[in-house]
């Protein structure tokens, strides 16, 4: 299709959709309404399981299968990205040059790093009580480690980041989550059932298996995001194209213009 034809087709279809969707919106319950049957039941169930953060209760207890699927998506994407962004034959690995970072930036970065790590771990640990949890905290931890790249340089980052360890952590998180489910299915009442003692409401160790699953997710997300960023950084910083530039259509280096 020509660019214009494509746009025309799209605009025509979009017009139909926009009209239909707008009419459908008029049939929606008004924004901010009071009828939330599922939500009310979920809150009730969360309180019964002594989980102060109802969202965590939905995520890790009532609809724990969704979260298993979600973590598996992350796991699959990390696995996929590592395979897709592998260094292929013919690509050279260049040593990144040591970067010069001003003293102020360096100090700030190094001071922020432990703070950010602690915040991340705190967010993971309190997932059952306060907003946050394994996913949010995990991302914070993973990005915090990359402050080292800003504060020092890529080589410093690589020293604290042996990628295969993090791959192991990623898989271990996924394994732990699934294994919890399998154990509760074989020895307990049902798959991913909350079988642990529920503890005291609002305490760090409340809510039973929610704590375990939350920790597994935190580990998987932190490690997975580190690996994900590592593969992209690897491409952007270290992996050089095959000598002679990207392969041309003929499979041979493109000739120099005359």
């Amino acid at each position: 299709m020509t660019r214009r034809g494509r746009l025309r087709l799209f605009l025509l279809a979009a017009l139909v959709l926009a009209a239909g969707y707008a009419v459908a919106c008029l049939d929606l319950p008004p924004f901010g309404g009071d009828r939330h049957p599922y939500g009310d039941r979920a809150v009730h169930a969360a309180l019964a399981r002594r989980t102060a953060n109802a969202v965590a209760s939905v995520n890790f207890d009532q609809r724990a299968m969704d979260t298993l699927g979600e973590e598996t998506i992350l796991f699959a994407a990390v696995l996929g990205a590592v395979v897709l962004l592998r260094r292929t034959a013919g690509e050279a690995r260049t040593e990144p040059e040591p970067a010069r970072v001003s003293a102020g930036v360096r100090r700030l970065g190094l001071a922020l790093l432990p703070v950010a790590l602690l915040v991340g771990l705190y967010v993971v640990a309190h997932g059952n009580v306060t907003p946050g949890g394994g996913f949010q905290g995990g991302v914070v931890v993973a990005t915090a480690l990359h402050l080292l790249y800003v504060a020092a340089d890529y080589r410093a980052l690589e020293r604290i980041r042996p990628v295969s360890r993090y791959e192991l952590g990623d898989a271990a998180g996924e394994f732990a989550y699934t294994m919890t489910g399998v154990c509760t299915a074989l020895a307990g009442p049902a798959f991913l059932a909350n079988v642990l003692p529920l503890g005291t409401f609002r305490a760090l160790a409340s809510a039973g298996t929610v704590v375990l699953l939350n920790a597994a997710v935190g580990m998987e997300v932190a490690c997975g995001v580190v690996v994900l960023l590592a593969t992209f950084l690897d491409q952007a910083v270290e992996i050089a194209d095959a000598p002679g530039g990207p392969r041309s259509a003929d499979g041979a280096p493109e000739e120099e213009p005359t």
Partner: protein
Amino acid sequence: MSAFPAASALPLVVAVPLLGAAVLAVAGRRLPRVAADAVAVAFAGTAAAGALLAAAGWARGAGGAGGARGSAYAVQWLGGWRPGRGGGTGIAFVGDPLSLGLAALVSLLVIAVLAYSWRYFEEPPLPPGSPGTAGAAGRSGAFPALVLLFQASMSGFCLTGDLFDAFVFFELMGVVAYALTGLRVEEPRPVHGALAFGVVNSLGGYALLLGIGLLYARTGELGLAQLGRRLDHGGGPDALVLAAFVLVTAGLLVKAAAVPFHFWLPDAHAVAPTPVCLLLSGVMVELGAYGAFRVYWTVFAGSGGVPPEAATRTFLTVGVLTALLGAVMCWRQRHLKRLLAFSTVAHGGLFAVGAGVLSADGTAGTALYVLAHAGVKAALFACTGILLDRYASVDEHRLYGRARELPLVGGMFLLGGLALCGLPPFGTSLGKAIAEEAAGRQLPWLTGVFVLVSALTGGAVLRAGLRVFAGVGPRPRATAAETAGTERTHTGARNRDRGTDRHRERDPDRGRDGVDGGAERTPGDEVPETGGPLRRIPATMLLVPAALLAAALAVGLVPQLAAAAGRAGRLFAAHGPYAAAVLDGRAAHGSSPPAVGWTGTGAALGLASTALGAGLALLAVRGPLPEALDRVLGPLRRLQSGHIGDYVAWTTAGLALLAALAAPGTVLGR
């Protein structure tokens, strides 16, 4: 095992491959290849056993934990969150014969794929010095792990009884499939095909999620059974229900590659590694249709949903368009993987028609058809993979007569073509016969569509098989550009490092304006997936297509399977009983299942379409089609442009088309 009810096995069918994937992701590259393959097969086999056990439990009539004894649906509330009086908050896994059968099919096909790639399929290599390879060049070990994740996602999608959970598995299926499609990043086309696949399927996922949001706003529920029940309490359908139906159905039809959402499929299938094609074509695409009809029956089939006339109009129109377009495009291909991909599009259309008449026997026939089609199509892809690995090409013209030395593979390929045509007593023929009879009762000319589409797709396979394996007919005419290409090919094909896409257009305008567009251009030669051209065909690679064809034959010959399909159709095409079984644990009492089996008419029509397909194939190998026909088909071929912007525009148009099809009788003219 009697203390362990069949329903409890349902989540394990998903969990076991996940465990295997986690193990292989770590250990895969450290273990020797054989050990890694064996671990993968062990996990996949355990899950398959679980699925079969659950299916057998169902067959014995043990409903399991969730349902009363004798209930036809095995219901398992995950985490033990069984609904109380006010309604529940948990997710149910529901095993009915169709979902259990599909989950078993997924697992068995995964085992076939692992066996097919056993030791020979070259996993993505890592250059020396990559992490975890201890200096030497190594494997990434990710392939079997990804296949297990694929298995888990597809099984989960079959078994879940919750719409949002289905979305999660839908996305997981997608993510794994994009990675598997683009696995061979050393070549230009896989990355492009995987990207188109990823963008279009993600859009489908987002449309599905918007639809879920609208349904949640109306009903405050996410479970399929609960959604259906709430909609029925809310009075007749309105624009909101219609919009939700359109968005949810479109999202699932993207996965099913229905026109005009189908463009990603040929692009992805032509370039994905062959073992992956077995799964994509054999079962993933069909799961899209399964999802669309599952949601229709459980959510929208009641009084508060979409009226049956509107739904059937939507499904039949889309199905017929898909079947015809797919069949015509299939006939036009000479790249064998693309040819098979378009035949999957066409058959997907027939499935939509067969189930789209919204009757129990139509559904039962389609179920059998899907089952047998999976075996046949996977066997055909497996044979094509052997050609690819031996001759470094899958081009019908270039391979002319070269595969005479492979009579066994050739025999299986031709048998597959005949089965695709609908030759009795293959299961494809039985399924087609039942589905086309059900469709013909609704609209008599639909029978013709079934016959024509089967003949065209099967005929295309026969034509290619006759040329490649027997050298029948004159050598296909080669264009000048192609002859030039062939000379350079032979040395280049083995060199994995080099780009293979010799015929890529440098000038973007030339291909677009040229008379031939893209289709006549040779697809270029391929790189074997076995790390080098095969000298001897390994026994595993021969055994797999043979077993798959035998299974497709068995589907047609085992009367118990047909009877089970009849019961499956009745239970699947049911709105109230599903909700009653899931929510109230009440056994389903209903009409008796439709009698499903061979009939004289069905067998005769199967023979007719086979004769038509064989005739077309013999006619085609004599010489090229008349030029005039080519000119008519040219614009159709140019639609498949490989341009992501085009595909997105068509996807949007498809959403609008579905809205236009479903609106009359739902909100307009009531």
